[in-house]
């Protein structure tokens, strides 16, 4: 069944004529995603890979009935693009862009809330429901359809994890890259709730990292709600020194917050095993799939 996106999802690409936008539009179309339009202000009326280009998201939504957008707009303009999409009536905004100023995101997050739109990212690879729809930049070959829900702050680690899942003979219902920034849209807890209600998803894998407290919040939710499906986790950055930002804007241990120890502890207290390697995580998840005797 999958969550958030499926074969009926209609996607508009913001920044469609840029290098990244054009390349990934082609890849999404190859996958079978319904990319119904694109936006580059000033290029309206033209076409990109047979996708009609519009000057504004509002026009694109009016003309194509797009309900989802994916953003490849450069960092200085990305938050604005998010706001524009929400205002145009897009229900799910996926922002790939890395480097968006934090205060821009504070403003955009507030605006989105008032518009009732959901956001994934920024600084994320997007999401994929294998066999149905890809709204993102992930390598399609790695994914098969199946019962694992995957939520991750890291892009490349999801590719590797899903590759292991495919090699283990299983598959993924939906894989969501929530992104590496401190201010993001959908968090672990939000995706967990969606996976809880998705009949196709039987096990959830969380790939977390140092910084912030989203893992702790997710763990508390799993515990308090008696989460009905098995969850397995991985935390990267366990050897990272405090005070240093490890690539992702949100991956930093500040004082007592964001430590890997706290995250591992929170998960273990919630009955969520934390694998030491991605291989181990997938093994643990596969074991949860097998019917108990």
């Amino acid at each position: 069944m999958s969550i958030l996106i499926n074969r009926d999802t209609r996607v508009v690409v913001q920044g469609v004529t840029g290098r990244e936008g054009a390349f990934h539009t082609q890849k999404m179309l190859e996958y079978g995603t319904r990319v119904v339009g694109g936006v580059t202000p000033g290029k309206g009326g033209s076409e990109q890979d047979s996708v009609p280009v519009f000057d504004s998201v509002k026009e694109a939504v009016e003309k194509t009935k797009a309900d989802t957008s994916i953003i490849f707009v450069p960092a200085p303009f990305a938050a604005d693009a998010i706001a524009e999409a929400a205002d145009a009536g897009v229900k799910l905004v996926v922002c790939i862009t890395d480097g968006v100023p934090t205060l821009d995101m504070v403003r955009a997050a507030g605006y989105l809330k008032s518009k009732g739109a959901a956001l994934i990212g920024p600084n994320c690879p997007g999401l994929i429901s294998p066999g149905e729809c890809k709204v993102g930049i992930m390598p399609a070959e790695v994914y098969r359809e199946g019962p694992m829900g995957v939520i991750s702050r890291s892009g490349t680690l999801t590719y590797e994890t899903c590759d292991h899942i495919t090699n283990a003979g299983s598959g993924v219902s939906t894989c969501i890259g929530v992104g590496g920034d401190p201010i993001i849209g959908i968090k672990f807890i939000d995706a967990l709730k969606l996976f809880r209600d998705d009949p196709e998803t039987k096990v959830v894998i969380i790939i977390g990292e140092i910084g912030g407290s989203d893992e702790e919040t997710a763990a508390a939710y799993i515990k308090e709600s008696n989460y009905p499906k098995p969850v397995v986790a991985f935390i990267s950055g366990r050897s990272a020194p405090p005070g240093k930002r490890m690539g992702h804007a949100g991956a930093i241990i500040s004082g007592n917050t964001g430590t890997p120890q706290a995250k591992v502890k929170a998960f273990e207290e919630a009955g969520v095993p934390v694998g030491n390697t991605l291989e181990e995580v997938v093994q643990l998840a596969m074991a949860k799939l097998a019917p108990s005797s």
Partner: protein
Amino acid sequence: MDLKLYEFQAKKVFAQGGIPVPQGEVVQNADAAARVAQEIGRVVVKAQVHVGGRGKAGGIKLANTPQEARECAEGMLGKPLKGFAVNYVLVEQALDIAQEYYLGITVDRDARRVIIMVSSMGGIDIEEVAATTPEKIAKMHVDPAWGLFDYQLRDLVEQAGLERKAQRQIIDVIRALYNVFQYSDASLAEINPLVVTGGGKVIAADGKFDVDDNALYRQKELLKLREVSETDPVEAYAASKGVAYVKLDGDIGVIGNGAGLVMTTLDILARNGGKAANFCDLGGGAKADTVRQDLEIVLMNPKVRGVLFNIFGGIVRCDEVARGILEATRTMDIKAPIVVRLSGTKAEEGREMLKGTNLIPAETAQEAAKKIIELVGDRGRGIVE
């Protein structure tokens, strides 16, 4: 990394924003310290370093005369304080302190909003206060749509139990600091302590100010302060080239595609007894010049005795990465062993290309880690101390 300003720089930014700061001047030699003390009178001499607990470590000293100021400065300049080089000291008017409060503004990730924190427990590490007496910290989130209302600030300072007579001045400081925070794209702005003097004046006795790395492109004036601030030279060079690089303590250089994957590589090394010399994210670039640039940067660190590439090819193809690494290393004179883990798209082709070269291929990250640790260890054994 976010741009961290020194206290004297933070105070300049505060002053520009209308926040009262002590009269003072930053200097780089003892004579200048004496001169400033001569002008001001009783002063504090404060070592400018990016670390807390300066006072206890002897980095903040009271000087009653210009000669004392000279001696304090001499004792600090050019000598390490808590492991940091002291290139500047701030010579400032000594304040007649009646109250010490805390004021901090930062971004609350959970709430997705800017948060303002005020406490009557100033002059202490705020993390300690948060741990032992959290009720003493009054907090409020700012709605980005509306900004700050005065009544919210009146409520905040009252909740924090700040001295009534000083509340209006403090509210003005909070508003000014919030404005500075916004227009400077700060990630953290802290005044600890925010002093109320015996004469009833509110002054920022200390200052901390960090600027969002992602916003530096639009903070050109603040960006100029980066050269002055303390940064590791390799990190500074990498930042100037837009390369995501963080210096660490070990001897194994690490380069990978994706921040999470690189962090995991550091973890795998640690678990196998190795120590990473750095974090370096290649990003989406498999091209020879990106690889070359990143490898050059990693090798600038003299501690590096081996390099580990960890690549999971998605859209990026492993044979392209292999080609990039081969091209890069062909034109560089590298003595250190290099292990390249290739997995994902075209991994077998990539590994095949590395055979017969002096690059060592690996299939899994575990395998690659063990190989490089062994190789670096072997070399280490030959060294005579």
